């Protein structure tokens, strides 16, 4: 989680001086994020043995090698979601009515929904990315990076306030990525049924 904020600051630092066009900054941000995801992957794999020593339940980490990936992805997601949403939330408390004078009345709900998608997506991407980097599966890597670029670009549609144009594809992508991450982490329809059954 520590490195996540670092990466956020660093990439913004690098990107911001260049941008006057938001899309340009956005593309670079996505690339930097994926780059830092890769760095974190390298770091965590190297530190894994050390972390196992200091972890309380060492069995749990060794059991499932996706736990580290999940945690990293979740960290990314939380920070990303927090940074996107918290200022909007703070403004939402204050006086005013959205959409009364200008703007769309669905601003806040779209904000919230999109943030949720991104948090989930980052978590899924974390799992897929780490597993793909472990097994050198370049297709999955491309899916992660490409998917990130795709959804970020889709959110650019929000500028025109036609929120459905970005939300609907976003949720579809989230669901698909979720299924993919589930598969990568070793789940299957059978295991899902087994987990859901009353035992």
């Amino acid at each position: 989680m520590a490195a996540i904020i670092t990466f956020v600051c660093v990439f913004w630092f690098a990107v911001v001086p260049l941008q006057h066009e938001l899309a340009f900054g956005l593309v670079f941000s996505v690339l930097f994020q994926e780059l830092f995801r890769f760095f974190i992957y390298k770091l965590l794999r190297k530190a894994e043995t050390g972390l196992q020593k200091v972890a309380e339940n060492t069995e749990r980490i060794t059991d499932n090698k996706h736990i580290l990936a999940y945690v990293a992805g979740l960290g990314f997601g939380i920070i990303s979601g927090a940074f996107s949403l918290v200022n909007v939330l703070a403004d939402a408390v204050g006086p005013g009515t959205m959409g009364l004078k200008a703007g769309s009345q669905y601003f806040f709900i779209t904000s919230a929904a999109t943030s949720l998608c991104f948090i989930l997506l980052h978590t899924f991407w974390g799992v897929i990315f780490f597993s793909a980097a472990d097994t050198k599966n370049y297709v999955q890597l491309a899916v992660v990076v490409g998917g990130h670029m795709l959804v970020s670009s889709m959110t650019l549609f929000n500028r025109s306030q036609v929120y459905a144009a970005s939300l609907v594809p976003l949720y579809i992508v989230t669901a698909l990525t979720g299924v993919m991450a589930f598969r990568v982490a070793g789940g299957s329809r059978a295991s899902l049924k087994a987990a859901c059954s009353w035992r």
Partner: protein
Amino acid sequence: MPANVSYPDNEVANSVMKESSSQQENGVADTVAREAPADHPVPPEWHEEEEELKYGAKHVIKLFVPVSLCMLVVVATISSVNFYTTKDVYLVYTPFHEDSPDTSTKVWNAVANSLILMAVIVVMTVLLIVLYKNRCYKIIHGWLILSSLMMLFIFSYLYLEEVLRAYNVPLDYITLALLMWNFGVVGMVCIHWYGPLRLQQAYLIFVAALMALVFIKYLPEWTTWVVLAVISVWDLVAVLTPKGPLRILVETAQERNEQIFPALIYSSTYMYSYVSIVNGEDNEQASSSNQSPQSQPTNRSQESEGDPESGFSREWVSTHAERVEQRQRDIREASGGRIPNYNATAQTNVSAQPEFRELEEEERGVKLGLGDFIFYSVLVGKASSYGDWNTTLACFVAILIGLCLTLLLLAIFKKALPALPISITFGLIFYFATRQIVKPFADSLSSEQAFI
């Protein structure tokens, strides 16, 4: 020798160390063999190091919660109660009020203010050490008691008044008097005497938050940041240099086998000897529990005054001692349980070894000084007072990272470490970076609702 170590940690550690040194072949007396019972072979050193790290990691988590809570209280107050962000009067120690619009004037104003404050802090610290060395415990205890009285009654009352005013809630004086009286008295009892652990922790966190709010309100803008930086440097100097006042203080306390002002440290376990010594050593228990109440009432002779400004000058005095104690805490935290040259006492009976091990695991709590809480909260509170939550969040994470690193270093180096420099440095870097660079970009992103 009945010289009973009043640190529970030290005592148990002494006994464990004795146990381990009697059985270790490699003769490394200063690493504590936590898992070697008396009849098992010597654990290799890496195993001990791993234990050290595990200890460090576990206690990092234990400290995250109180530090976050304190910051939460401060941030919540700052964002909801306007009183703490309006600038009317300033501390008497900061005569330069940064009124001019010229940047360079502001800068030298801030630097001058913080140098004055630093001078006051240094003088107070030295005074405290002189008092301590000359065993003027009554004065010190009275000082501390008076300062916590002030915090718990006057500042809490002012805080409550401002919160009620901000939320437009009426409250009659009778209820108020009852509330404040109970709150204050229970607080005094919990902090200076015995009380439920959680309650004591809650009171300490609240007192630290109040103090942080005072600093945020009564220091001019740029002065706050410069003070934070200067105090981190002072912390570093005072704790690590051989002639540093705090180091002298801690070493003196260790020589005398005493507990240092337990009223001003946050501890995650009971600091009272009577709880930890359950291994049947009654004489130690009796004398340690005698000792702890004795070290509690510290004297800080200040009378309260109606004028907040002169009251704050005394508050400064009290916080100096707090901060001093805070660093002693850091040192204690580092040293509690790990001082190899300290097990001069022969009082421990090594027969209760399994108990020692258990005790050790339970009561090797982590301690952090209240001054650390205060300055972390000042940083985060000040960051949040500008209204941007991204900055606040970034500073919060930075401080937690710094705390993590500090505790890790503590677990590795096992000596006195200041808790302020790393966290405050990270906090300041992240604050300025986020504010200047991240904020505009994040704002434009969120106004377009583009997500990255």
